[in-house]
């Protein structure tokens, strides 16, 4: 589930409030969005792909709450890792272009 909206990174664009398919976030005045309905998070990770400043972290656990530490996530490269994998963001090659699934499907 979504566990982090980084106050230090967030630019309050509120894109996550708009793009979340299950309406987890709530916009606030002069503050980063709030995780208002965490139990509705479907752990699809897609908010991370849209966040332009890698301020969001979705923990892999579907049901359990986990405590996360922002600096550890940043140091281990997990903050923003999915957006980097998908290849969104300036100077990145889109992952769609690098999809070599055909090598695998030949082996089936």
């Amino acid at each position: 589930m979504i566990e982090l909206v980084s106050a230090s990174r967030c630019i309050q664009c509120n894109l996550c409030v708009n793009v979340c398919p299950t309406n987890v976030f709530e916009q606030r005045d002069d503050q980063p969005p709030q995780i208002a309905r965490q139990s509705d998070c479907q752990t699809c990770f897609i908010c991370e792909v849209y966040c332009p400043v890698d301020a969001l972290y979705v923990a892999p656990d579907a049901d359990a709450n986990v405590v996360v530490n922002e600096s550890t996530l940043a140091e281990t490269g997990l903050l923003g890792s999915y957006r980097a994998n998908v290849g969104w963001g300036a100077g990145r090659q889109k992952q769609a272009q690098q999809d070599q699934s055909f090598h695998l499907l030949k082996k089936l």
Partner: protein
Amino acid sequence: MERNQISSASDSNSIQADVLVIGGGPAGTWAAWTAASEGAKVILVDKGYCGTTGATASAGTGIWYVAPDPTSRESAMASREALGGHLAHRDWMTRVLDRTYANVHLLSDWGYPFPVDDTGHPYRNSLQGPEYMRLMRRKIKQAGVIVLDQSPALSLLVDAEGAVAGATGIHRQTGERWQIQANAVVIATGGCAFLSKALGCNVLTGDGYLMAAEAGADFSGMEFSNAYGISPAFSTVTKTLFYNWASFTDEDGTVIPEAGSQKGRSVIAQTLLKKPVYAILDKATEEMRSIMRKAQPNFFLPFDRAGIDPFTQRFPVTLRLEGTVRGTGGIRIVDQTCATAVPGLYAAGDAATRELICGGFTGGGSHNAAWATSSGYWSGQAAALYARSLGQKALQRQVKQAGTPQANKPTIDPKAVVEAVQAEVFPYDRNYFRSQSRLVDSLGRLDSLWQEVQTTGQDTSNDPTQVVQAREAAAMVATARWMYRSAIERRETRGMHKYIDYPELDPTQQHHLISGGLDQVWVKSQPIANQTEDLKVLAGVGR
């Protein structure tokens, strides 16, 4: 009036369009694009955000893209006919393969970044979810479609003759109610996965089924509604391709005989009823591992974040219900335009039955993606032509909400209803493997639940989240009843419907099961042969 612009009706809360599309996944966006290309004023509403909503956006998918040479086409069509219990239709497979081929080339023209294979040719059999759906959103906006995000539809509107004439809904962030009058409506709300947290599936709660049924539409193949996807036990990522290179074991590493991703998934389910099952992707070579990472980065997210190397470390797995998302049942369509039994109402994508190309067993993401783009294309085109045939004056029709208006007093918690439905449809010994005694038992409780949700179904609460969740809960109860009522009537084992009282396929039951009804659920059989009679091409809409 300017093309594609919304006009305000006399009632300030009501807006007008030629075509209303409900649902902003692949099917809905294709429908919106073709309808707008026909010159229709189109509004698309989505419960979430068009671009991230639905099973495709977060998961990604293969697509049934087959070169139009007769040998490849023949083997593509023949490959899953037996698996599907011979309920699919060759004429539908042919036109879906044709349409999908053309649409994938459109995606290419629009700039979808297909990779190049080792012979230097574009490889067009797979679509990355975020990329595909962001492109579709951009294309429909360019075509003039008005997109309303976070705006779930709650009920259809019908005219005095019962033809569908729009919908009402709510903006779930502002709580503002909306009403859209439209000459035609396309339902593209996806299937129903009962909030199982299968990847991207929690927006798929059967809302469109319930709305369509209230307007009088019916269903086909709802017994084929027990697809389950493999995921790590702690995670939502139900992407199963790579489990073809997995060993499934006990906790101590003892291999479970016959367990597998494709043919052995039942063995995994049977084992999970007794004890935990573990997987390890130990059959993937070193070379394959890096290709896998590039092909499906979201597959590796949960592992990387949980600190597990899935190639060398065993991890517990579970099976999450994908219901009719990967099942094949859905709203019955009555002709090649994807019209439903109700005038003015069309169905596309996973909201519609996919038996026509898959029969009773899922073709996986690949067939569903092909169906979504094809049925979306046809339904949008037909809806635009139908809307034009009614003309502007139809927007002056007197309309009312479909279905019986319900009491307004919320008496039960939607979350409690959802949990009660899940207790009937999640267990492998109720849904994966079905038995008459348990189906009857479940239906008894589901019928009582239906009586209960009648008081919450049309909640006028001021909390929009509560309003939407009450409606979702009602849709899930209704969906489970069509599923299990149909399952009882198919007294055999065919496709994904595994009936332990009737373990063999019965050649006399090679027919479709049509179901419908709200207070009284009904099921009837439709001979396969009659289907071709129904397949009349309406004027102006063909391949």
